[in-house]
């Protein structure tokens, strides 16, 4: 099976969709001739033509608006926001328009659009190239939010997102593009080619939206994670020697609550982790759901480990990032209840 890193898998997903469906169309800043600042659309313009893969003006609001209009026409646009930190000028078109188009027209129109954005910290990007804004959009009814943690999922989830008839935010943890970074920033990251999830099938396949994956079975505590934090969770389980069950949520909305509930009922405790700031992050929803649905199984409070409630500070990236040490400490607190 071919081996791909995450950028290649994402590129391959778009390549596959462009080839299968003439209604798929890709645009965004620098995605055309250049192939994207992270190379996610490398060669796609060359392969599929100028009219299907092209550059866009620097106006995220306009980019999303065009996608909504094209979606109303009947296209299936896939747009790139160069960094998730720059999604806010597009917030209105996402929240007020794309998210509610099907509802407000009682199904006459809808927004089958996919908004891709490199996301998360770990590359010394400071406060405007490191953000994890998923918690803002998971609050909005009508949007779906997907965050992959590895190449094989990334391809299958992205194809599913593109083929989905609802608007999907697809956040790509940029720190994972080249390898399964686990938060041990002082160690070399092995490339995806040496990781089983770097084996990515050719051609068309999907990973269904709304289904989590148990990436490590364990009995002592459940860790709910997504994106980069899945690998941090695995590292923390290893480092701490605590037999954690690690769930990779993959899709935040709709959420796979069944898988979560099953695990927490088994382990009796739960640690929720994300890189986004703590307050009102998606972890709050997870903690609220877990305590509600698993109250009588819980032997300790649901712990949250997250980015601090500050902007992402350039020089203190590794003090900010919720790495394996902090997660391990939370695991210990959870099991030493």
């Amino acid at each position: 099976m071919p081996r791909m890193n995450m950028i290649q898998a994402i590129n391959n997903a778009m390549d596959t969709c462009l080839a299968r469906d003439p209604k798929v169309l890709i645009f965004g800043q620098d995605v055309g001739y250049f192939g994207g600042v992270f190379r996610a659309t490398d060669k796609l313009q060359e392969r599929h033509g100028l009219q299907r893969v092209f550059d866009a003006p620097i106006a995220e609001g306009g980019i999303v608006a065009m996608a909504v209009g094209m979606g109303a026409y009947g296209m299936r646009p896939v747009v790139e926001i160069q960094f998730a930190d720059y999604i806010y000028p597009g917030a209105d078109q996402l929240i007020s328009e794309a998210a509610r188009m099907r509802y407000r027209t009682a199904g006459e129109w809808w927004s089958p659009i996919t908004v891709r954005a490199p996301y998360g910290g770990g590359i010394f990007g400071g406060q405007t190239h490191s953000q994890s804004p998923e918690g803002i959009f998971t609050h909005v009814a009508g949007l779906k939010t997907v965050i992959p943690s590895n190449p094989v999922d990334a391809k299958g989830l992205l194809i599913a997102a593109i083929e989905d008839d609802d608007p999907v935010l697809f956040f790509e943890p940029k720190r994972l593009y080249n390898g399964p970074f686990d938060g041990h920033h002082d160690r070399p990251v092995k490339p995806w080619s040496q990781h089983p999830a770097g084996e990515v099938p050719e051609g068309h396949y999907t990973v269904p939206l709304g289904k989590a994956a148990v990436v490590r079975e364990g009995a002592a505590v459940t860790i709910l994670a997504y994106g980069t934090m899945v690998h941090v969770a695995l590292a923390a389980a290893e480092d701490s020697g605590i037999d954690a069950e690690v769930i990779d949520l993959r899709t935040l909305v709709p959420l796979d609550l069944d898988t979560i509930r099953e695990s927490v009922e088994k382990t009796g405790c739960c640690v929720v982790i994300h890189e986004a700031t703590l307050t009102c992050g998606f972890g709050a929803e997870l903690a609220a759901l877990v305590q509600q649905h698993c109250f009588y199984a819980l032997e300790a409070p649901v712990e949250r480990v997250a980015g601090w409630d500050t902007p992402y500070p350039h020089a203190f990236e590794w003090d900010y990032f919720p790495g394996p040490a902090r997660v391990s400490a939370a695991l210990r607190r959870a099991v030493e209840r």
Partner: protein
Amino acid sequence: MSLADPDPQRSPLSLHIPEPTSRPGIAPDFSTMRIPAAGACPRPGIDVQPGDIRDLAFGLIRVLDDEGQAVGPWNPMVDADTLRRGLRAMMLTRAYDERMVRVQRQGKSSFYMKSTGEEAVAVAAAMALDRDDMCFPTYRQQGLLVAREWPLREMMNQVYSNSGDLLKGRQMPVFYSSRKARFFSISGNLGTQYSQAVGWAMASAASADTRISAAWIGDGATAEGDFHYALTFASVYRAPTILNIVNNQWAISSFMGFAGGEATTFAARGLAYGLPALRVDGNDFLAVYAVTRWAAERARANLGATVIELFTYRADGHSTSDDPTRYRAAGEKDAWPLGDPIERLARHLTTLGEWDADRHAALAEELAAHVREEGRASEALGTLGQSPQLDRASMFDDVYKDMPPHLVLQRAQMLEGN
């Protein structure tokens, strides 16, 4: 705390706050308004270079003169039947508006917005476009639906949120949507449709389709980012679309000076992006028809988008929630120098010998009866809050294509009263 003290050598700055020429208690004054004579503006070919017609952004394209004659190069030479259809649609729009305000006052709906005085803007455009061209309107272009003969009762059902409402009671009154009439869902958020229209047009072009889009925005809403996105993308990708700016002088209580109308025209916005920009008398049915045709032909010829400022006047309040006497001079509507679109078109037809007072009265009566009848048919399906047939569980539908588990659960909770 300021960074430094003002320089005593220099005279102090001051902030300019725009003020309209009239307010309650100050008599309306349109005397400084420059109104070029009908027929005065040249009509270029559709393949003109936008840079060669910048003057049209500062003129005013008019066809109907004060005597009701159609004059000059922009005269679209429309036959009398078409004009009578236009007149009918404008009158029907006005009659419909009047009824819907009345029923709102009676508590049968929560809200309403009229287009009184601006009927030509929508009706003439609808008639100049193809029936398949896609419209992205604001809440004040109900005339598009009327001209496209979308049944009034469907519109009323929406206003009443009754059991016939195709939008299932989800939207505030007048936020119509009709895929069949190629009338895009109206958003409560000003301006968003304008950029979407460009996206739609880009998709049409990318699909080798032949259909174009047209969008409308109010003078006030041109300040939104979406306006800028629309013009930028339309210029960059030469999108086949018509970008109409309905300058009706007011945005609720703010006169158009707060959208930049003191400094230049709204048509001038088009120049910023190298788009052809036409400024037109929005109360002149023939002129609106002609410029729309011109822009449509240009778009269909793959020459890209046109910006059109429709210079008109909001003759009534902003909505049923509004009381314009608090901020507008009483006589402003009557002082408006460009008249009323219905009267002007009727006069023109009369001049042509194709219309007279009796026919006008008879038509008015017929339309009033039609509106009454449609109203009765719609009210039979209920009015706001009086429509038990509406299924409240449907409020969980269409959030997503397939209902996800959490909404299945919430729907059950609602039905159980939790």
